[in-house]
């Protein structure tokens, strides 16, 4: 079984990113799915797989089935797979494998949440049993990784800032972006500390919204005349088991295994990648991802950002739609959608002649990792 390119992303769809007062996450899922089906040119009756990442802000029992009910389908296979922020790509991979194994033929993978206007208590709770120390919320864990990275490798605040500045610059040209306001290095340096060393501008947005993709086999897409099916060349996953305070290394993660698996499946290496969409819930994450994925040596992520470049003309154009820092704070599906646009040549900030795109998702405090490599429509 050679899975490379056997499945495609046939359609993409999303809601507006930002605030949706009064809308439920199920409603936002429906809008994203409606748009993805229309993009693929597929009727909902043909969908027999439905994979949904549960809303981060509030876990909901049998949530995928509530979405299935709202779109009026009875899928053969589906559900919620909890990999936190790695879940969207994790479920795209699962859908591709399910299709390959004959478990379904056309799958939807969808996510929506409304933490901006709805309940967000789930995003601010304690991370484990250490509340008495004031160990609260997710920012601190990423700040621990950033501080250790700075101490081990000399990574600087300005290098973290360069990640945020790039995201904000790319979002300026993205009509969907929630935050279209340029960021200067001076303004970054003046940004208030949230959990030092991370400042406000190191932290992703809080966003309502939904995004979905349609996955099917390349053969099915051809038979249906799907206009621009983007082949899935490789995927992989990795699980950093230990909580951040317990893991032997704070500065390298199982993202390395996730990327290695995806590169091996695709038959590609980092030098073959033209554009990257890296999960950037906090600015330190793309820096660690560059290292774990093999785009530079361990500890070299900060220098890669400032010297080799992640801008549209840089060595590795990154987060061309603004990422979690500026397009939408939703956990990762928007990165997949931008990757598809780059491969179709329809991105607002298009990387010229881009033939391959790598996308990372991760969740927890860099606990869960998933990687997707896509290519140009055949």
């Amino acid at each position, binding site marked *: 079984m050679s899975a490379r390119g056997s499945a495609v992303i046939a359609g993409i769809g999303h809601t507006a990113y930002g605030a949706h007062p009064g809308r439920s996450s199920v409603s936002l899922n429906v809008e994203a799915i409606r748009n993805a089906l229309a993009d693929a040119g597929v009727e909902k009756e043909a969908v027999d797989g439905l994979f949904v990442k549960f809303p981060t802000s509030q876990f909901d029992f049998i949530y995928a089935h509530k979405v299935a009910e709202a779109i009026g389908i009875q899928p053969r296979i589906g559900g919620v797979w909890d990999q936190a922020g790695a879940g969207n790509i994790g479920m795209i991979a699962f859908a591709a494998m399910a299709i390959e194994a004959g478990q379904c033929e056309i799958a939807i993978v969808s996510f929506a949440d409304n933490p901006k206007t709805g309940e967000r208590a789930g995003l601010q709770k*304690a991370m484990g049993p250490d*509340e*008495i120390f004031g160990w609260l919320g997710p920012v*601190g864990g990423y700040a621990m990784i950033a*501080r250790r990275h700075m*101490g081990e490798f000399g990574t600087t605040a300005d290098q973290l800032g360069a990640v945020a500045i790039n995201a904000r610059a790319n979002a300026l040209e993205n009509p969907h972006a929630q935050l279209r306001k340029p960021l200067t290095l001076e303004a970054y340096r003046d940004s208030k500390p949230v959990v030092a060393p*991370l400042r406000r501008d190191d932290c992703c947005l809080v966003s309502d919204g939904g995004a979905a993709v349609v996955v099917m086999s390349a053969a099915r897409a051809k038979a249906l005349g799907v206009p621009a099916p983007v082949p899935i060349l490789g995927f992989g996953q990795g699980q950093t088991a230990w909580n951040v305070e317990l893991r032997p290394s704070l500065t390298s993660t199982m993202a390395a295994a996730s990327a290695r698996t995806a590169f091996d499946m695709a038959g590609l290496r980092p030098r073959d990648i033209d554009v990257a969409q890296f999960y950037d819930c906090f600015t330190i994450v793309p820096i660690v991802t560059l290292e774990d994925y093999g785009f530079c040596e361990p500890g070299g992520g900060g220098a890669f950002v400032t010297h080799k470049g992640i801008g549209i003309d840089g060595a590795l154009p990154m987060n061309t739609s603004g990422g979690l820092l500026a397009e939408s704070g939703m956990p990762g599906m928007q990165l997949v959608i931008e990757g598809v646009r780059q491969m179709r040549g329809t991105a607002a900030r298009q990387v010229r002649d881009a033939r391959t795109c790598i996308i990372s998702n991760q969740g927890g405090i860099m606990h869960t990792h998933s990687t997707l490599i896509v290519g140009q429509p055949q």
Partner: protein
Amino acid sequence: MTDVVAAIPLPLPVRDALNAPYWDALLEGRHTFQRCGACGNAWLPPRNECPRCLRADSWSWETASGRARLISWVVFHTAFHPAFKGRVPYTVAIVELAEGPRLISNVVGIDDPEALRIDQPLELAIESEDGVAVPRYRPVDER
């Protein structure tokens, strides 16, 4: 206003049969961890099974020396719980005991948290909060 804020209690650890000996030992001035007699592994936080050899019947509590190392630290400038409104900015650290186990703690007895450095030596400084003895750490005076 300060008094009102100070009156909001800290979120205290939930005691159970497994962790009660840990918190009771701290009241006696001892920071303890679990060690597996079968494979020698030492760990925190409390678990029923050794996460290396998975045995449930071979571990016991051991008292730490109080010597430790600063793995990383952060400074909370935001109070994500009302009890910490009067405490920001405060320092939270990943601390590695000389015996190996790591834990979340606070670094106390410092003027400028930004002047700390990774891997610097620390020592146990138990502090009382609402009747709970909390294992915090302070820098070792190296002068």
